[in-house]
């Protein structure tokens, strides 16, 4: 019972429902967010909130299976959840964002920390570790944005039954900032930005372990407490 546990920290995962090429399920970001936030919450002995399943995916344009909410809506959802936590004296919130397009989270959390000076709300670094214990995990980093080596590896580790064999490798010739100007379907016909053929379950496993360690250490340092 929450009233008996009296948690100090809450963990909120943020996922997305959007196309991920033809080899990964549209629920990829949400499935990863659920798993990552659960593992982090266990490590922190925190209250695990249900991961938000839908967020700012309008960047994927006309690809089927993509569902979204607007930036202001996502911001409002996070604000309301923070108010709920504040009202029951859960004053530390870790937001584990697993969709790179949720840029509104940063200013929202910045503002919330000002509005609730007795709370600490932090946003975990969503970039996946490129190495662990001195050994590199992924081969591609700067060119891997969506449904590439990283996400394919994570899903091969977590949900191999939903990963299809057919892979597409595609890296456009311009930078990520172009998604501010056009949508993914205009850049990549297959919806992939990266090298999905390089994904392996072993990379996914190592990345997940390293990410949980990284986020947990960051949270403990920021919240200045021990589990």
């Amino acid at each position: 019972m929450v009233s008996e546990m009296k948690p100090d920290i809450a963990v909120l995962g943020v996922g997305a429902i959007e196309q991920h090429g033809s080899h990964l399920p549209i629920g990829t970001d949400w499935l990863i967010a659920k798993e990552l936030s659960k593992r982090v919450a266990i490590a922190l002995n925190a209250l695990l909130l249900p991961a938000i399943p839908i967020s700012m995916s309008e960047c994927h344009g006309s690809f089927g299976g993509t569902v979204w909410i607007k930036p202001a809506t996502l911001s409002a959802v996070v604000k309301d959840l923070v108010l709920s936590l504040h009202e029951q004296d859960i004053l530390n919130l870790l937001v584990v964002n697993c969709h790179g397009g949720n840029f509104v989270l940063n200013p929202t959390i910045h503002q919330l920390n000002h509005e609730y000076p007795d709370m600490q709300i932090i946003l975990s670094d969503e970039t996946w570790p490129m190495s662990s214990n001195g050994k590199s995990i992924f081969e591609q980093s700067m060119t891997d944005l969506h449904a590439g080596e990283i996400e394919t590896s994570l899903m091969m580790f977590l949900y191999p039954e939903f990963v299809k064999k057919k892979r597409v490798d595609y890296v456009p010739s311009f930078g990520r900032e172009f998604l501010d100007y056009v949508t993914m379907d205009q850049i990549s016909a297959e919806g992939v930005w990266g090298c999905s053929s390089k994904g392996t379950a072993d990379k996914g496993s190592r990345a997940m372990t390293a990410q949980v360690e990284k986020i947990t250490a960051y949270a403990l340092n920021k919240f200045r407490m021990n589990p």
Partner: protein
Amino acid sequence: MISVYDSAELFIDSPAEIALLPLVGFTPSSYGTTELLITEICKRVTDQLPVETFLLPPWPYGTLPENDERAGVMVLHYETMALVVHDIVKSLFDHGIKKIVVINCLGSVNSSSALPDENSIVKTAVRQLNYENPELSAIWVQPFRVSGEHLKRLYGIEVTNEIVEKSILDYLFEHKGATESEDERAVWKEYANSISACNGQENEDAIGEKAFAEIIEAVVDYVMKTFSSIAMIKDIKKSGD
């Protein structure tokens, strides 16, 4: 059925005609079982609808009574809830899905009005969406509400939500408790502990099975008839223009 475990390719090969968006309010003491019930109901409804249907995962946060001060209760303001429903339904419509069913939590077996229990903002959001997008047919459904008369015949006139939920969970637990994901098994185990603590109560999975079937049939029937009626009304209007 198309779900979030499928790739986007499926939307090209078998475009969805209907989308189902389940909404669940989050309170830690009940969330696990409410989500399981709604998920199971939605899966079966999706399977039985006669057209290709896209089933979304449950949206986990809702608007609860303002005075609900139980620990762990997470609430959205009504304006936020309206925005959530608006944005999700609109994004589905923008992808060409013109029939959208919002499963507005479970509702009440004793409800008889057109006002949804607990969550009238969802009704408002759906209404506005239909006004703003004439080609869209968005409807809200509460499974216990549309099957209320069937459930009263099954259980008797004094039936409550709690009685129905428990018997359906008993039935589903018998059939699903050991087979699902680790997270779902944890919820089922917790539920099993809670029912075993109730001394002297019989396991009512037999009636639960019937109730579950009645609810699914009632929801499917309501959805198809409602969309059919809306289409007829809109056709009448068009021909009268």
